[in-house]
């Protein structure tokens, strides 16, 4: 089996328009959550989110491209350009034929859907733009990445709500790990910060009106974000041969299904996924120095996740650090695991653990070291990234420091 390393990373999210800005914000514990700005926001009860502000699509794409690129596709392409640029790869010949792209998202072109529902329902028009379908389909982003970078190998989109990116990256890892391709582009994106998108979430009554405070006793719900995270997963020898800079090693992954409830999380399901990744990556529990928590800031998730980690790690649970960066960038739903993997890279590569900001009151049901409010220096050999989706579908990835 091949070893898999990360040789490129890219992002755009509420904390920054690239990896450098995002990691700086995470180190400084900056909050990217603010007032939402879009049409009809005044009709929403929830008016905050981790929105990408000051973004001008026509600075990056021409008119023809924009007629085909929903916001989630635009974010994906920007993140992919950064990641592939950093990796320094050009895809041609045999490499192009084998390399592919596996991305996660949950809502697809939600803003396109929203705009065009307005056109036909609200404005009563009987005609929509011809590209509505190719713009909103969930695989549009993966397809456009494949076209822009000439990726002709295994390519598809994974949609498992809040675990989409982690499931996608697990697939990409597996494709490289088993030798099917030396390079895979992977990660995810999401953009559902539009009236219909937020209104739908509002209906569930799980959203906070003021802040995302994971693990804090006074937490009152999740806050949505948007953006993308894209990585280049590369076979170790392939990367070494061309002198690529290695950001971290992907040590393994595990997936599980709660098979229990469509929205309530399960401690057993989460624990099985965490236990599974330790087995898959042959990691001793004591090696895990950091967990990027799913940490949504809901009452149910945070206590269930804390209990699952305590069960799996026993006494070591009190020594490891676990934070939720959703407190800063919001919950990016199908993109969240991808953006959160950046915090794991920072932990193993730079020895800096991103904080859980907005933390105000300890909760005895979340009694782990959640790195409250201020980032911390720590020697982290292995970092895990948890994602536990609605529908009970869980995926956990492990990164190891590459020395």
């Amino acid at each position, binding site marked *: 089996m091949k070893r898999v390393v990360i040789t490129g990373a890219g992002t755009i999210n509420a904390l920054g328009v690239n990896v450098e800005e995002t990691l700086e914000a995470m180190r400084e514990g900056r909050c990217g959550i603010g007032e939402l700005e879009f049409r009809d926001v005044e009709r929403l009860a929830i008016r905050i989110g981790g929105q990408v502000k000051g973004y001008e699509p026509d600075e990056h794409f021409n008119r023809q491209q924009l007629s085909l690129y929903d916001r989630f596709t635009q974010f994906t392409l920007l993140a992919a350009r950064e990641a592939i640029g950093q990796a320094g790869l050009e895809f041609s010949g045999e490499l192009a034929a084998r390399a592919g792209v596996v991305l996660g998202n949950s809502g697809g072109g939600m803003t396109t859907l929203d705009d065009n529902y307005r056109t036909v329902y609200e404005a009563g028009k009987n*005609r929509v*733009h011809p590209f509505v379908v190719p713009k909103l389909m969930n695989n549009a982003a993966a397809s456009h990445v494949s076209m822009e970078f000439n990726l002709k190998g295994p390519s598809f989109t994974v949609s498992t709500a809040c675990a989409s990116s982690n499931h996608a990256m697990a697939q990409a890892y597996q494709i490289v790990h088993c030798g099917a391709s030396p390079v895979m582009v992977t990660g995810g994106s999401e953009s559902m910060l539009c009236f219909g998108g937020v209104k739908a979430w509002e209906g569930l009554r799980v959203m906070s009106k003021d802040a995302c405070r994971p693990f804090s006793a006074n937490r009152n719900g999740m806050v949505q974000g948007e953006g993308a995270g894209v990585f280049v997963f590369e076979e170790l020898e392939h990367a070494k041969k061309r002198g690529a800079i290695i950001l971290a090693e992907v040590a393994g992954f595990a997936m599980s299904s709660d098979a229990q409830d469509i929205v309530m999380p399960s401690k057993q399901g989460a624990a099985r996924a965490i236990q599974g990744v330790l087995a898959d990556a042959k990691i001793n529990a004591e090696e895990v120095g950091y967990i990027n928590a799913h940490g949504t800031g809901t009452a149910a998730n945070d206590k269930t996740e804390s209990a699952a980690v305590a069960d799996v790690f026993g006494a070591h649970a009190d020594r490891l650090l676990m934070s939720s960066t959703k407190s800063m960038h919001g919950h990016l739903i199908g993109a969240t695991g991808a953006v959160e993997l950046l915090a794991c890279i920072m932990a193993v590569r730079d020895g800096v653990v991103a904080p859980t900001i907005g933390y105000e009151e300890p909760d005895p049901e979340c009694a782990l070291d959640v790195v409250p409010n201020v980032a911390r220096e720590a020697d982290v050999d292995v970092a895990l990234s948890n994602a536990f989706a609605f529908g009970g579908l869980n995926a956990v990835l492990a990164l190891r420091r590459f020395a």
Partner: protein
Amino acid sequence: MAGKVVDMDVKTRVTQIIAEQAVLEPSDVTLDSTLEDLGIDSLGLVESIFAIEEAFDISIPFNANEPEASEFDITNVSTIIAGSEKLIAEQS
């Protein structure tokens, strides 16, 4: 959207729409230019038809699966203009 443009000359407006799709100046689009000459692909064609429908508030019978079967003749710019004028007259 612009809504119904009754005053603008159909020829001028259709030429503008096609030029915009081709990323050309309207002066570079001649009556005998074919869409192929102008580098407009199948997606560009359906987008042009959409734009013409929007500009004149008409409905153009066109199925991309069988463009020849359509009464709307897309042979070149002049046939598109003629077809548009006919539909505007019929549907106004």
